């Protein structure tokens, strides 16, 4: 169940990061644009495993240094690998979400936004009530793919010692001496989860495009 918890936490974080990132990319501020650009380039060009290691070990070193400046007797602070993993995965997938959401926001018909303005909606209200519901439909197919890669990225957190299924399978192997059986079970579990995600995204797409289907 740990991978499902990581999946849920990282998904929520990644969507938030994606929305903020795409809003920054589409903003008029040069500074916000370049911060968002650097963010997406860095996190899309670095291996997922490396990001995970940087976040996990980096957070430990940074927190230790901060704690030592207050209390020199502290030797080492351990970062919970679960949260480091969830955060690292959210950062990676957030970079992809940023790009997807940016494209989807650009696909929203400008007339709708103008109409919202004319009705006296504030910038923030337009964003929440007009832009997001509209872009959601356009972002869905890519969003589904990102959910799948997020799910598959959760396998990496066994590397930093979170006791999720791959880690448990490793433990079980040392007892049963049947590595193939153990790892194939892990693969099947992932296959089931990714299939469910695919079906859910298909259903969501059908729901989102309901108003288009009836006209045919």
């Amino acid at each position: 169940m740990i991978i499902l918890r990581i999946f849920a936490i990282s998904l929520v974080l990644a969507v938030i990061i994606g929305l903020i990132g795409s809003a920054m990319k589409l903003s008029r501020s040069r500074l916000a644009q370049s911060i968002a650009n650097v963010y997406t380039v860095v996190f899309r060009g670095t291996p997922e495993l490396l990001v995970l290691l940087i976040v996990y070990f980096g957070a430990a070193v940074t927190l230790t240094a901060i704690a030592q400046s207050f209390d020199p007797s502290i030797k080492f602070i351990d970062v919970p690998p679960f949260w480091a993993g969830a955060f690292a995965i959210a950062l990676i997938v957030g970079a992809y979400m940023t790009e997807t959401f940016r494209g989807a926001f650009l696909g929203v018909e400008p007339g709708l936004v103008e109409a919202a303005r004319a009705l006296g909606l504030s910038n923030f209200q337009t964003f929440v009530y007009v832009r997001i519901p509209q872009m959601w439909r356009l972002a869905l197919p890519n969003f589904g793919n990102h959910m799948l890669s997020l799910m598959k990225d959760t396998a990496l957190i066994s590397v930093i010692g979170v006791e999720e299924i791959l880690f448990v399978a490793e433990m079980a192997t040392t007892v049963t001496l049947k590595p193939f059986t153990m790892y194939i079970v892990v693969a099947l579990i992932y296959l089931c989860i990714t299939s469910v995600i695919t079906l859910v995204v298909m259903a969501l797409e059908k729901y989102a495009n309901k108003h288009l289907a009836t006209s045919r």
Partner: protein
Amino acid sequence: MTFDFGLVFSSIPKMLEGLGLTIELLLLSSFIGLVLAVITLLMRISGRWFLVAPAVVYIYIFRGTPILVQIFVIYHGLPQFEFIREGIFWPFLREPFWCCVLALSLNAGAYVSEILRGGVLGVDKGLLEAASALGISKPHRFIYITSPIAIRLSLPAYSNDIISMTKATALASTVTLLDMTGVARTLVAETFAPYEIFISVAIIYMVIAWLVQKGFGLAEQRMSRHLKPTAG
């Protein structure tokens, strides 16, 4: 806490050794993956169920599971069977390097065949109708008309896939291989300076990704030069 540049410079030679292995993994598995992808694509579009079904199952399995799990199944899992340990492929399957190449190639084959299929489906029907009206046979239509256009259409997605392959080679470090990430992990274990080492390695990966993107961008430009309006 300071960023120790001396440590970065002193560990660059070791990292470059790792870079060699990373590039070897990348080139070998993307080549084998491409061959697998073309075979899978041909099976997939053949229209015969006994060829289509295995291709679909292969793509479904390898796209639905994490690469790390695939590497573990191949490297740790396969030696469970007697016939593998006694078979002719054992000298290869014993080595973590070839296990990684196998896992990455199988994975790339599944993804790239879907990309190529997108390209094939994107070819204008009219062109194929025109070709068949001219009496060009089906194999010739595929080689001379579908393929060049499909390759051009699938180039952008293919370059993205090569970049994700580059990133996937980092997983080789989990099965004791000393690729760039593997070297970085040993260095961090020795020095406990995660920022210096990991960030320098990350920059090398980003440079590779950038080079791949630029290279494919140029190739794409060259392949679609007929689409540009002629100057003057």
